[in-house]
């Protein structure tokens, strides 16, 4: 049990550390859906960024501000429109895309507001999820996606392949892409998308607008 818990915590950290590694020191960063501010705090401490956050939950926001982070209560679906073009070097959407009402518009805003957008999301193309639908005929419930279909905040799941195809449609360039396996470890870069889409539990993409 203890091992399992530590394992999960370590996996979560790898996800955040991966994002942190993508960010240049001293950059201006907006974290959309920043939760309790763990990533922002990490970025400020390790990358010396000028960090801001938006968080939907009031408890999350209050916790962030108490920690001294610049975070506002807001909704990715409605409030990104207020931010000016190129206001940030990086805009991060970490594990939030699947909970937005209009994911495409949200990504368009990320690309408009930030010179780079970093998006991480759970991959619905993972073989375990596919097999739950295929063999059990049930909506998937996994360790990382633990909600039942009727109370999940996650309303717009996608697979890695779906996301890549959307970036094509939006004329965005993928600058970096990392898939994390079940243990939260980055998979080898040389693998083709189809393999990532089958074995990646999570994906982290860095995008910029234009090709």
């Amino acid at each position, binding site marked *: 049990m203890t091992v399992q818990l530590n394992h999960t915590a370590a996996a979560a950290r790898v996800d955040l550390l991966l994002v942190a590694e993508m960010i240049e020191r001293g950059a201006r960063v907006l974290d959309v859906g920043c939760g309790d501010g763990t990533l922002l705090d990490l970025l400020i401490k390790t990358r010396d960024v000028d960090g*801001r956050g938006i968080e939907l939950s*009031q408890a999350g926001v209050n916790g962030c501000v108490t920690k001294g*982070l610049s975070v506002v209560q*807001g909704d990715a679906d409605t409030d990104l429109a207020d931010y000016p073009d190129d206001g940030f070097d990086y805009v991060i959407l970490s594990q939030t895309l699947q909970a937005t009402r209009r994911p495409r518009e949200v990504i368009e805003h990320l690309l408009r507001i930030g010179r780079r957008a970093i998006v991480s999301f759970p991959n619905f193309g993972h073989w375990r999820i596919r097999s739950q639908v295929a063999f059990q005929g049930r909506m998937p419930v996994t360790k990382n996606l633990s909600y039942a279909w009727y109370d999940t905040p996650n309303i717009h799941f996608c697979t890695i392949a779906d996301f890549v195809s959307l970036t094509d449609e939006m004329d965005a360039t993928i600058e970096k892409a990392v898939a994390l396996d079940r243990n939260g470890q980055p998979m080898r870069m040389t693998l083709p998308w189809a393999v990532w889409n089958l074995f990646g539990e999570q994906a982290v993409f860095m995008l910029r607008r234009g090709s």
Partner: protein
Amino acid sequence: MPRSKTTPAVSQNEADHPTSPVQHFAAHESLLLDSGASLGPWQIAYQTYGTLNTDKSNAILICHALTGDQHVASDNPVTGKPGWWTSMVGPGKSYDTDRFFIICANVLGGCMGTSGPANHEAETGKAYAVDFPVVTIRDMVRAQARLVDRLGIETLFCVAGGSMGGMQVLQWAATFPDRVFAAMPLATGAKHSAQNIAFHEVGRQAVMADPDWRAGRYLAEGTRPEKGLAVARMAAHITYLSEPALHRKFGRKLQDRAAPTFSFDADFEIESYLRYQGRSFVERFDANSYLYLTRAMDYFDLADDFGGSLAAAFKGTKTRFCVASFTSDWLFPTSDSRAIVHALNAAGASVSFVEIETDKGHDAFLLDEPVLFATSRGFIDAAARARGLKEQG
């Protein structure tokens, strides 16, 4: 000077000769007001707490609300009651007097020692009354800036305040962006809403309908529009509370009686409470001041000064903002704070925003709200680190 028997001598003295420190400005140091009028000589009364450091980098200016005053953390000389914001200002508090130099000045148009309608002109010895020029929030801030100049402080570490105080905070940040390192506008808005203007108008009409108002000349005629001012306060006080809080505190409970008296006596506790609020208010506040200050709030529309764009008011600002609203505040609802936050985001400003869950209504910013204490301390500590202020002392 004639004085009615009901005029509290002490409050009259506080207007002209306050017990607080005062900065006097001569006729040639006059204050040019938004109305076009020039005010001079004039004076500003203030209190300070804590010690200004050698860099003069640890000053926090607190801006008081409509019926507040400079006695933010010291006993009020008129009422003898403790300062109005001791929950936030004091040793170890969010605005820590062991660490920061806290300044709070009576606003322009007030009645506690800064020039206002209750003051007597030095030359004529007559009370200004309604001859005092109409002032705006920006005029109040101009006056405060002159005080800050006199104190030798270039940049304020923080400007903070709630309600009308929050309006001043926003005005400071817009007018003097380089002089405000951090700003905390609480339970406020960037403009006064039609509903708020409406409530203020009810209050002003109540004052002016009182025969003792005497077209504003009551100080000269030795009367006081106490009834009118008390009604104004009663109506306003309702807007500072919330329906759930009124229900929780009073409900339909009767005041010291078992059954209704079938009269217009204060049968209900809420009636008795409001009458008390009205009565105690008139003992400490000047009716004309109330007219002037409510007017200043009504005129406040920060975006209007910047071509209708609130974001333009904050364009390029380096000030760090922390905006807070309260869920049950219907005078300055969260949507007002959110409009400020949207504008600050659009301006690329550093901003934090919390909406605090409470049933205490608009007055929550003055009360015991642990989430407010925690968030403001977090914000102030982070700002102090960014400003390079030492942890303690």
